[in-house]
């Protein structure tokens, strides 16, 4: 199809103090990315960043963020992400770094990847539990997300096929 193509980066914001994570908001993240790009790539980078760049989704609890970049220059912009060391949000400077988990051509693939990634994480958490209470909570969480998404496997298949296509 004929459309404007973009790249979506699924990033994880890692903070030293997890409570700081809740203070994040999408404008702060976008500003931090812009500043970093401008610092690393100068005016050229800033200009590239001004077009079609946006933060599509931010979950302050988990620290996941979807960034959209133009397809032509996403590598250049991506290269600036490691240089972000802090985000200024709500008058506080939150030290953090970005960890890119996935690069996708559509939001949908990113979402699919996120589903897989999160379930994996939950599954990994389960054996490492320290007490019963925690174990119970995690099990509940796993069940809640698996129960609604009964047809997980079909999506896995679709995901695979679409990834193949790309």
């Amino acid at each position, binding site marked *: 199809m004929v459309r404007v193509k973009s790249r979506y980066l699924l990033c994880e914001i890692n903070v030293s103090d997890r409570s700081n994570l809740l203070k994040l908001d999408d404008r702060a993240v976008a500003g931090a990315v812009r500043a970093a790009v401008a610092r690393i790539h100068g005016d050229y980078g800033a200009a590239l960043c001004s077009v079609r760049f946006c933060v599509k989704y931010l979950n302050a609890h988990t620290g996941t963020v979807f960034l959209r970049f133009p397809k032509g220059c996403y590598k250049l912009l991506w290269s600036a992400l490691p240089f972000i060391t802090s985000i200024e949000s709500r008058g506080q400077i939150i030290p953090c770094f970005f960890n890119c988990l996935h690069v996708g051509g559509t939001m949908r693939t990113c979402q699919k990847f996120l589903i897989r990634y999160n379930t994996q994480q939950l599954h990994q958490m389960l054996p490492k539990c320290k007490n019963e209470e925690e174990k119970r909570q995690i099990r509940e969480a*796993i069940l809640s997300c698996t129960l609604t*998404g009964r047809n997980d496997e079909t999506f896995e298949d679709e995901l695979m096929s679409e990834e193949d296509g790309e």
Partner: protein
Amino acid sequence: MSAAKAKMREKKMRNQPVSVQHPSSSHGESRAENGGGQSDARPSSQRQRAATNRSGWIRGHQRDGGGYAREMPKYITGGSFARARAAEVNAMLKAVTKTAASSHLFQGLPKHMRRRAMSHNTKRLPRRLRDLANRMREKSLQAGPKKKKEPAKNKSRKARRRHGNLLLEFNRRQRKNIWLETHIWHAKRFHMVKKWGYCLGDRPTYKCYRPCYRAMSSHCLLQDLSYYCCIELKGQEDKLLAALSQLTSKEAGPTFAAAMCLSGARRGSVTVYKAGQYPTQPLGPVTYLWRPPTAGLTHRQLWIWAHPTLKQDLLPELQSVCQCSEAVVPPVQPEVSCAEADPGIQAEPKPDSKLKPGAKRKKSCKDAAEPPAKKILGDGTRLPGTPVTWKSSSTGIVINDLTMEIVRYRLIGPQSHSVLTDTLEAATVCDAGRTELESSSPWWPQHCKDQSNMTLHQQQTDVFNILKGVCSTGEVPPGTVLGLTVDDPRLNLPKTKVKAVPRVSQLQEADEEKRRELMLRGVPQPCCQSSLWEQSVRDSVTDNKMSEQELNRMKSEMLVPGSRLSPTPPQGRVPILLVHQPGKQVGNELSCWGAGWELLLPKGWGMAFWIPLVYREVRVAGLHMSLKHSQNKAVPHFPHDYPDCPAGARFQEEQEAEFLDKFRRRPPAKRTNYIKHGCLAPFRCPWQQLAEEWELLMTEGGAEGKGEGQTQSSTKTHVEMEEATPQQHRAEANPPIRFNVLRNRKSLRLLSGWCRPTTSKGQRQWRGAPPPPLSRAAVTSFHSAHRMSLVWVRLTLLSKGKPETHAMVCVPTAEDLKLFGKKQASSGPQERPHKDHFKCRMKRKKKGLKEAAPSLLSSDDGEGKAPDAPAASDSIASKDPQSASDLILGLWPDPLPSVTSHCTRVTLGWVTQGDFSLSVGCGEALGFVSVTGLLDTLVNQPVEHRGTLLLRNPTSLHYRFVKLNIDV
């Protein structure tokens, strides 16, 4: 973003996850408006599912610290971490699984499962989606009442073409416009136009302009003129004449009382005026035919033939003149309009079936279940109850509207008589034995019983046979009438088309004598009688016409195939009238061009005569060719060339609308800019303004001109005219006198004599006193007698050029004439292009600089003569708003400036018909010029160039020299 778009977007984004952020404690702004998500969803799966109905995602800031902690947590626990992940997974799952609502079902399918035309046929979808798809499809079908109504299912072609259904359809289509009897024949071959309440053929679909001209000038051209309306007047001769004399004047030529016509031996033509209004308010030309007087009776019958547009003016006038106000509602024969043309000679139709207005029943059809269609004969648009007869109790005159009662064919051309004699055969006499048997219906056997009728018939037959020997139709005295009874012409229809040729050589000496008699004296008077005048005979003939089917059956039963059917069936006799139609009577050259015969038939017999005529290799023409015919004859054609008649005025309006519409259909850049060509009125001729302006010019110029005498040049008039603006005219000429066309024969003859150079050899001999020579005094007296009048002129181009409609007739200046005298073949002067002030004004209007307009207006009035006429400019300026609204690029807006003096040559008049004349071999134009202007011009012109004028087409700047002729 529009509301619909926003709604669409919201629908699309419904399932997509929204960012989860903590509400800011310091600034209250952050995303609080996403409050839809501030639900109290619990981490428990049930609550979550309930929440999904409302929004796609549970926000991070639940009040009771559900999935996410409401307050900033002090420390992190594994449980909250896991819950957060689980909630995110759920949101993402929803986003991934649910497709956007706007899209179709199958768009959610993977590509390899898509099939062609899935939206059309739900069975192509996977079964699990079919129900949904069906539901959606129904919904969309219900939502589409805006869709066009499905066209009613037509009957099959076979059903439509079945005879009864076809007739019903034809009758339905005839309700609005009258069809002639030859309509179907014409509709297959002609471009049909709806005019004057009729469907008429305009011109054939094949190319035949020159063949038609050739037919007119050397063989025969056939036209169906049945649309002409016949009005019958019955009453005492003296009373009729007294009534009709109010409508005419002897000055304009012979009236209804012309001796030749009154005897019934000739057909006459006359221009009718409103009662007692003679030089003003004409109605139009009519032709008339008196029924030959029967011995000892003063009761007379008169047919007046008028054009349909003229009839609506003429009929009330006739009624008032004859005091015939009592309408006779037709009680006995309610079907005056729709006579029975049923095949066969069965019994009389039942009266109740006759009374039915719409679908009538066939006589043979007994059952009432399905009323079969009936062929409409005559006027199908008229309601059955409409009166067609008016009676006067005081004068005893009866007016009868015979519209569409009589079929009228016109044959034009020198060989039209041979076509007639070929086609028609005088009726064979019935033997008495048969008449006794069938005394009921056919009129002929009864007619045969009377010996006097038979001798008359024999005489008529003789005359008709003599016609065969005539070389050219033009030799017969104009307007001759011959009554006749003929056999059904379908009986001797040739197998193939044969060309009718004159048989001159076959004649003997005795016939030669008779022929000379015919050519000199015309048809002897008793032979003009015909049974066609009798209403009862006409009805009987129409009713008893043998159908084509029956005739063919009889033909097929003959022993020798292809031989003539004999004896002629008794119902196969038709009374007809042959009326000679004069050719070119005016002018010196090509006299008798376009003479012909007219064939009058009872209704119902149209096609029976048409096909045999066509089989004699005649050309058939439509309205277009009849216009050309009168153009070649140099006679005015009704209603085109009668601008002073109400019908002519109506025609002019129609024509202007038509031309304007055509003009407007072109893109503005491709239109002719008539302002630049100095053409004020390309689509209509402002005759009234022209006459008024010339009148004013004469009264002013006459006062001054006396001192200057003959040297007054037209440039002088030009200057004078510019000062006189049309507004001033209107104010002075109050109350306005209507212009009229000069039809006084004496004056016309005088004017005609003045127009041609004195050396011309073609000058007519004057009976009695010679005409007064052209002088100022004569002109003044002539002018005082004919104020505000126009005269019909014929203009012959002296060099090349093809005149067009609405070309301007102008007066040459003295220099032009000098140039013309030196070199006869000089092509003529040029008009310099005019400036289009309206164009820039229109542009300015577009820009919105409205305050600039009045000043500009005053400047372009009278081409920069603004200071002279401040009042005029003011008046124009005041009219400006409405004129600017309908400003068309390239056309003058409505209050026209002075039409006479707009160009460098003074305008005398306009051309109404112009074309390259095939008969003369050069361009010829017919039109009107102002009598006042013409006289002024003639007086000022040198003797050798008298009658030389200039002609300029609306689309050209080139003037051409023309020779003026006034034919009497």
